[in-house]
C-alpha cells in the first residue's frame, strides 16, 4: 500500500526504533485511526512533539484524601489522548533514583498538617530537599493543592517547586496553587502545560502563560446544621470527655470516610481584652487576606489569636522591634509582655496574623443509616499552661454546644478512605476518637446489608468509663455485623495494653484475613498509635506469613498499592 519515500521512511524508522518504541508507535497509530476528525487536526499537529517526549512524561502525585490523585489520573488520561504516553505514579511508590533520569515531570501534591506534605509524599519531599544529585534533563511543573483557610497555603507544593528548580530542573510552567475548588484551575493549568509542550517541541523558551491567581472565595459548600443531641460518652470518673454530637442538616451529602470541617471562633473575652489593651477602633474596616472585615470581626472570628506559631511571633518581633524568643504564644500574652506602640502599629500586627484553621472531625454517622444527619465524635482537647487546665478552642466549643444551637460546617471529602466493595472483608483499627469513621462504616454496611466480614479493634484507657459506643458495638456483634471486636484498655492493669497488642495476640487470624483479601483501615492518633500499629502489622505478616522483614514490608506496600491499606490519622 505504501510506496516510495513513505515506505522508505517507515522502514528506516522501524529499523532504528527499539522494541518499546515500536510498541508505542503501534499504539500511537491505532490511536490516530480511532480519532475523530475534529481532534485529528490537533493530534497530528501535536504528533511531532508528542513523539519527542514519548515515554518520558511522568505524572507523580502526593495525596492524603485523594484529590491530587484524582487530578493526576485525569491528566494521565488526557495526555494519553494527546498521544503522550504518560507514566502515572504515586509519590510513595516512586523510585527516587529515577529522578535525575526524568525528562518531563509533573508533580501534583497537596499540603497537610501545618504546611506539611501528605504522608505518602514525605520521602520524596525530604529527598528533593537534599543535595548530591542534579536534575539536568528535567523539565517540570508543580500543581499544588491546598486550602486558603490554612495559614501555610499550598506550602508543600511551593517547596517542591522551589527545590526542583534548585536541583537544576527547568520549570516549564509556573506553579499553580489550587484552593478546595481546584477543578477549573487545575484543568486550565494542564491545558497550558500541554500547549507549552507543543509549542516548545521540547524547547525551553518561556511563553507568556498566564496563571490565574488563587481565588479569594473558597468553594466550600457550607451547611447550617442544628445540634440534635450532644452527650459525653465517657462515664464519671474518666479522665476523658468525648462528645457524641448529632447534627441535623437537610440535604447534607457525604460518604462514610469523610470528615466535616468547623471554624471555631476565638473566645470573646480575649478579643475584648485585646481591643481595650491596644485601644484600636473596633469597627474600623481592615483589608486582610481573608477579606475586608471590621477589627472586632477579624479578631473574634477570622484570625488566629489563641496560639501564634513561631513564624508569626518572629514577624511580630520585627514590627515592635524587640527581641522575642522564638516560641508559640497567645496574642494577648504577647501584647502584654511586648506591647505595641499604638493602634497604628497594631494594625500592622493584624496584617501578619493568620486565619483560624478549620478543625476536622471524622463523620461517625452513615448517610444510609442516619439520613439528613451528621454525627461526630469529639474528644475535648485539654492541656495545661502553668498548671492551669485549658481546653482546645474548637473541641471545647463543641463540647458545650447545647441542643438546638446552630452550627456551620463543610464536608471534607476523603476519597482515600472509602469502604471497599460490599463483599470484601474489612479490618478497622480505631482507638479513641479513631472509632468515629468506623461507626459510620458499620452503620453503612449494616444498612446496605453488605456481605463482607468486619473486624474492629478499639482501645481507650478504661473499660468501665471509656468504651465509646459500647452498646452499639455489642449490638453489632450480636447481629453479626461485627464479625470480631477486640478491645484494649490500657490502664485497667499494671502493664499497658494497646490495640496493637490485641492485633498481635490475634496475629494468625489477622494474617489469614489479609490473605483472604481484607482491607485494613486505621484511624486516630498519628503518633504514636499509627506507627506502632503499622509495625505490628508488619510483624504479624512476618511471623504468620513466614516472611522476612523486607518481604513483610513489601507485602504491606503491595496492599497499599492495591488500596487495601488505608489510614486517616491526625
Amino acid at each position: 500500500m505504501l510506496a516510495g519515500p513513505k515506505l522508505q521512511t517507515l522502514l528506516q524508522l522501524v529499523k532504528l526504533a527499539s522494541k518499546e518504541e515500536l510498541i508505542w508507535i503501534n499504539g500511537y497509530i491505532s490511536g490516530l485511526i480511532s480519532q475523530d476528525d475534529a481532534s485529528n487536526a490537533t493530534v497530528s499537529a501535536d504528533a511531532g512533539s508528542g513523539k519527542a517526549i514519548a515515554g518520558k512524561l511522568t505524572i507523580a502525585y502526593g495525596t492524603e484524601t485523594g484529590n491530587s490523585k484524582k487530578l493526576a489520573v485525569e491528566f494521565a488520561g488526557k495526555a494519553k489522548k494527546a498521544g503522550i504516553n504518560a507514566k502515572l505514579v504515586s509519590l510513595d511508590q516512586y523510585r527516587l533514583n529515577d529522578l535525575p533520569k526524568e525528562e518531563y515531570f509533573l508533580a501534583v501534591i497537596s499540603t497537610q498538617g501545618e504546611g506539611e506534605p501528605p504522608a505518602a509524599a514525605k520521602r520524596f519531599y525530604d529527598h528533593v530537599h537534599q543535595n548530591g544529585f542534579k536534575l539536568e534533563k528535567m523539565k517540570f511543573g508543580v500543581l499544588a493543592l491546598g486550602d486558603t483557610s490554612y495559614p501555610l497555603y499550598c506550602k508543600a507544593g511551593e517547596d517542591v517547586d522551589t527545590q526542583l528548580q534548585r536541583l537544576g530542573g527547568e520549570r516549564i510552567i509556573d506553579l499553580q496553587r489550587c484552593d478546595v475548588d481546584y477543578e477549573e484551575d487545575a484543568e486550565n493549568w494542564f491545558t497550558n502545560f500541554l500547549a507549552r509542550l507543543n509549542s516548545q517541541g521540547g524547547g525551553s523558551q518561556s511563553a507568556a502563560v498566564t496563571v490565574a491567581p488563587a481565588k479569594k472565595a473558597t468553594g466550600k459548600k457550607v451547611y447550617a446544621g442544628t445540634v440534635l443531641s450532644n452527650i459525653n460518652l465517657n462515664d464519671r470518673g474518666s479522665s476523658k470527655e468525648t462528645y457524641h454530637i448529632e447534627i441535623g442538616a437537610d440535604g447534607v451529602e457525604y460518604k462514610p470516610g469523610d470528615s466535616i470541617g468547623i471554624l471555631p471562633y476565638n473566645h470573646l473575652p480575649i478579643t475584648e481584652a485585646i481591643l481595650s489593651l491596644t485601644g484600636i477602633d473596633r469597627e474600623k474596616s481592615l483589608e486582610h487576606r481573608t477579606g475586608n472585615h471590621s477589627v472586632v470581626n477579624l479578631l473574634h472570628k477570622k484570625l488566629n489569636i489563641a496560639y501564634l506559631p513561631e513564624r508569626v511571633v518572629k514577624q511580630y518581633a520585627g514590627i515592635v522591634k524587640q527581641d522575642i524568643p522564638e516560641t508559640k504564644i497567645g496574642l494577648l500574652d504577647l501584647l502584654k509582655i511586648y506591647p505595641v506602640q499604638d493602634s497604628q502599629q497594631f494594625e500592622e500586627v493584624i496584617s501578619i496574623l493568620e486565619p483560624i484553621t478549620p478543625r476536622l472531625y471524622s463523620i461517625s454517622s452513615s448517610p444510609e443509616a442516619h439520613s439528613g444527619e451528621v454525627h461526630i465524635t469529639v474528644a475535648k482537647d485539654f492541656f495545661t499552661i502553668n498548671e492551669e487546665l485549658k481546653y482546645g478552642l474548637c473541641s471545647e466549643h463543641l463540647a458545650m454546644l447545647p441542643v438546638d444551637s446552630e452550627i456551620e460546617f463543610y464536608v471534607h471529602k476523603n476519597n482515600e478512605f472509602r469502604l471497599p466493595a460490599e463483599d470484601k472483608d474489612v479490618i478497622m483499627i480505631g482507638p479513641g476518637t479513631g472509632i468515629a469513621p468506623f461507626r459510620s462504616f458499620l452503620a453503612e454496611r449494616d444498612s446496605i446489608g453488605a456481605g463482607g466480614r468486619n473486624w474492629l479493634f478499639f482501645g481507650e484507657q478504661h473499660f468501665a468509663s471509656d468504651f465509646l459506643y459500647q452498646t452499639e458495638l455489642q449490638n453489632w456483634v450480636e447481629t453479626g455485623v461485627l464479625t470480631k471486636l477486640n478491645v484494649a484498655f490500657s490502664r485497667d492493669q499494671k502493664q499497658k495494653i494497646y490495640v496493637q497488642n490485641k492485633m498481635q495476640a490475634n496475629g494468625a487470624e489477622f494474617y489469614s484475613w489479609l490473605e483472604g483479601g481484607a482491607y485494613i483501615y486505621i484511624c486516630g492518633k498519628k503518633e504514636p498509635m499509627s506507627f506502632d500499629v503499622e509495625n505490628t502489622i508488619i510483624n504479624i505478616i512476618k511471623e504468620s506469613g513466614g516472611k522476612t522483614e523486607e518481604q513483610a514490608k513489601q507485602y504491606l506496600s503491595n496492599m497499599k498499592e492495591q488500596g487495601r491499606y488505608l489510614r486517616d490519622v491526625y
Partner: protein
Amino acid sequence: MSENNQSPVERIKKASDGLRGTIEESLQNEITGAISDDDQAVVKFHGMYQQDDRDRRDERAAKKLDRLYSYMIRLRLPGGFLTPEQWVATHDIAGEKSTGVIKITTRQTLQLHGIIKSDIRPTIQAFSAAKLDSIATCGDINRNVACTSHPKESPIHEQVFEYADKISTMLMPKTRAYYEIWLGEEKIVDKKDEEDPLYEDRYLPRKFKIGIAIPPNNDVDVLTNDLGLIAIIENDKLIGFNIAVGGGLSTTHGNPDTYARLATVIGFVDTEEKTLKAVYEVLTVQRDFGNRSDRKLARLKYTVDKMGVEGFRAELESRIGFRMEDPRPYKFTARKDRFGWEKNHEGLWYFTVMVENGRVLDDEKTSLKTALLEVAKTGKSHFRFTSNQNLILSEVKEEDKAEVHAILEKFGVIKAMDESTKVRQNAMACVALPTCPLALAEGQRYLPKLISLIEPIITKYKLDAEDIIIRMTGCPNGCGRPYAAEIGFVGTAPGRYNLHIGGDNEGTRLNKIFKESLDETSILNELDGLFASFKKEKKKGETFGDFSMRKNWV
C-alpha cells in the same frame, strides 16, 4: 415430674459439667462486663453474683455504655470466724478489688461488692492465699452454716461451733470446678473423682440454709432456716440437737402460694454421727422431693408442707435408718448481741462492735474500718460475725484488753456505740439498692435515716429502754428477716414499705402485715400512734411485739 416443666435453672445445672458452664469463655469476653445468662446461674455456686450499679443504669444507657457490671463475692465462714491475719487480708482485698466496704451479712459472713470481671480471679486467689473460699455460699446448695456467735453463751460453745464447720464441709459439692477455674488447678482427668452422691448433677431444687442455736439466745434466728439445730445442753454438756425443718421467710408480692414459715421441731438426735446423718438426709429428701418446676415453691418449707410434717419425718427416718427421739424442751429468751466487753468462762474477753447494717467502712464520725484493721494488726483478737450483722473481737487476753480498747477509743468506735440508741443497735437492713437486682426499695442506705426519725418518737414516749427490734428489706425476699421482727418494713416500691408488726422478741413468732405500701410520713404517723398506746397500755415487761398481738392489731 416430667423434665419439660422443670425450671430453666435445672437444665443449666445439669448441663454445667460440674459447675463449669462456659465461665472460661465468659471471662474472656472482653466487650462486656457481664457473663452469659447461664453462667450467671453457675457462678452462684462458686459464691458470687453478677450485679450492676442500678443507680447508674439510665445515665450510662444515655452514654451508650453498658450497665456497670460487677460481682459480689460472699465468703464461706461457717459460724462466722476469722483470724486477725485473715481480717487483714480481707481488708486489703476489699481495698484493692472492691468498693472497699466490707459487708457483714445476716448469715455471719462477709461480702465484697463491685469486683469487676477481670478481678474475680485475682480476688479469689488472694482469698485462697488467706485460706478463705467462697464455695457454695450461693446457689441451689447448702449455704454458709450459721451458729450462735458469742462464745460466752455457753462453756461448750466451741464444741457446738465446730459443728458448723463439720456440716459445711460435709455438704460441699464434690466438683473441682472452683479450684480449676479460679485457682488454676489442673483440669480433672477422671470425672469419677468428682462424682457427687449428695448433689448428683442436679444439686438441690433451691438454696438450703442451716443454722445452729445455743439456747437461750436465738441470735441466729434458728427457726428461719431450712434446717435448724437447737443444741440441747445439760449440766454444761452437749447431749444432742433438736432438729427443726422447714423454716424460710421469703414471700412474693401478689403470690398467695408463698409464705414465711418458721421451722417445725421434729425430733432429737444425740450423737455426732446421728446428727450429721440426719442433716445429710434432710438434704437428700429435699433433693428428691423438692419442687423443681416452680422456684418460688421450691424451698424445703413447701416440701415439708406438701409431704406433711409426719410424712417428712417418716421419709427422713427411713433414710437415716433410726427413729429420732422426741424433741427435748428448750427455751429462747433473747435474740440479740451482747454489745461491749464480756468475759467467758475461760477468762477471755469479747467485745461486740455494733456495725450499722453490717457495713464496715470509715465515715466522717467513726473510722471503724481503720480501727478494725489496727486491732487485727496487733494479732491479739479474733474476729467473729453475728447474724445481726455485728462483729465480735474475740478471745482477747486479759493483758491485751486495754490495747484493743484503746484502739476502739482512738477511732471513735466506743463513742459511736455509746451514742447509739437501743432501737438502732437492734435494727438491721438488707443490702438492696444499688447492687441488689431484686430490690424494689432502699434497704441499708435508708434505714439509718428512718431510724433517726423514729428515735424522737420513741424518746417522746419514753420508750428508750425497750429492746424493740426493727428490720427492713428492699423486697419481700426477706434477707434482713423482717418477718421475724417486732417491726418489719418490706419494700414494695421506691420509698414505700409494707409495715409488719407482732413478731416476738425471741424469734419464735412471725409478724403480720399491718399496713401496706406506706411512705415515710405515713410510717412515722402509724408508729407514733402505735407507740402512744404501747406507752399507755403496756403491761410490765411486755414487749412491743407481744403487745401488738394482745391488741389484735394484726
